[in-house]
């Protein structure tokens, strides 16, 4: 019963998200032409990337230590987006719909910093 209710809620949520996508939109898989950012040795390998509005960035963790991508409100980020922890070889993709500069960190390693400049 509870499972059924939850599934219905999820369907409603995803419908809403598709209708009103914000500046940052988590997308399920790396879309064609998305910009790659590798994570290795406690660093975002390309800490600054430039993309066109409407395109995506895909992060891939290449080491055993889990990392994530975390946008905190401030600057161009109007709503917090805390990505899931990525284990080795897992990926996370975000589509950027609005021009601006989007700073991010890794939640447990706040000294890991990166930015996406959307033109």
């Amino acid at each position, binding site marked *: 019963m509870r499972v059924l209710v939850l599934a219905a809620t999820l369907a409603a949520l995803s419908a809403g998200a598709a209708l009103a996508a914000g500046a940052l939109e988590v997308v399920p898989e790396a879309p064609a032409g998305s910009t790659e950012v590798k994570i290795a040795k406690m660093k975002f390998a390309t800490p600054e990337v430039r993309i066109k509005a409407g395109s995506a960035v895909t992060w891939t963790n290449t080491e055993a230590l889990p990392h994530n991508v*975390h946008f*905190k409100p401030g600057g161009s980020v109007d709503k917090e987006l805390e990505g899931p922890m990525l284990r080795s070889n897992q990926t996370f993709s975000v589509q950027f719909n609005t021009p601006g500069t989007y700073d991010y*960190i890794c*939640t447990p390693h*706040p*000294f890991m*910093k990166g930015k996406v400049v959307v033109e």
Partner: protein
Amino acid sequence: MMTHAYAPLRHAFRYGSSALSAAALAALMAAGPVAAAEPGSAAKQAADLAAGKADDPVVLKAPAPNARRVYVYDPKHFAAISQSFIIDGDTARVLGTADSGFMGNPIVASDGSFFGHANTVFSRIARGKRTDYVELLDSRTADPIADIELPNAPRFLVGTYPWMTALTPNNKTLLFYQFSPQPAVGVVDLAGKKFDRMIEVPDCYHIFPSSNDTFFMHCRDGSLLKVSIGADGKSQTKRTEIFHKENEYVINHPAYSPKNGRLVWPTYTGKIFQVDLSSQEAKFLPAIEAFTEAEKNDGWAPGGWQQVAYHRDSDRIFLLGDQRAASKHKAPSRFLFVIDAKSGKRLSKIELKHEIDSVGVSQDAKPQLYALSTGARTLFIFDPETGKEMSSVNQLGAGPQVITTSDM
């Protein structure tokens, strides 16, 4: 009886008790010779009773703090509410207690005039709205003298590291560390009783104030960072040379003496780095090895929580050590190594005969050595000169870990 007396105050000095009945007093009297009539003692109460003196309950004041006033902080194994015990080292008595929130950071003024905590509380005990604040308490009454809220819950919630929250030498500013979302140091104006600002810093940790507007931090790359707070709100930072290798792990509980600017920082293996910050620039002194190669091969290494203490006048280092397996650096130690900070020479090895987690030292001319056992919940007081245990204070909460004294 003292530790069981009920005091209806949040923070309380309670070294008196009028809870004993006349019958109990009579029994106590009969049981042994009358000791010196201390205030609150059974003998004193019996004498008062015999003299027909009426019982007159009052809220007590602690004596003026001295160099042997010791604060023991009990984070209670990450409980939502923690507690500080206020102890007189001379008499080995609990003078009072002060309540604190989740993972508080105890502080004490360098002149002893106040103590307090950087605190975190929630509206529903351990959930709900979070409030971070700094509370200062009068050192004789434990009454609050300041309550300063910190905006946006910026405190770093971590097992208590004393140098994650620090006072400037004039006791007018409190600095605290923020870990997430980015490393920063919060500035709290204690004199003006208001939060001032956050200073963004690189990935550096701990706060060692060397003057009223300068502090140092230790960075992930192995350098120190000098931060000048700046009166105009514009802080400046400068990195020193890298002073230790990447595989030399310095512990989370270095000793720091703000009065002479000495930073004493051991590694997991007992190599001790010393930095002199008194000139407002970092002067790196020659490193010391606490253990010989033979001892290291026999498994000797530092271990515990507050593993090191430094006595300024005698320039001595006190280091907890024991034989331990690798990665057992947080396990307690049964020995204390007394080391001359200048020459690096070992002066003595004290067998503590207890499992000790934290060590502290009073800063007077003939210091007391404080050895705290988290497991036994007891503070043992030693004479570091003879290595003799002089007294102890037990029943210190659930998991006491941090010793704080002031260098008056």
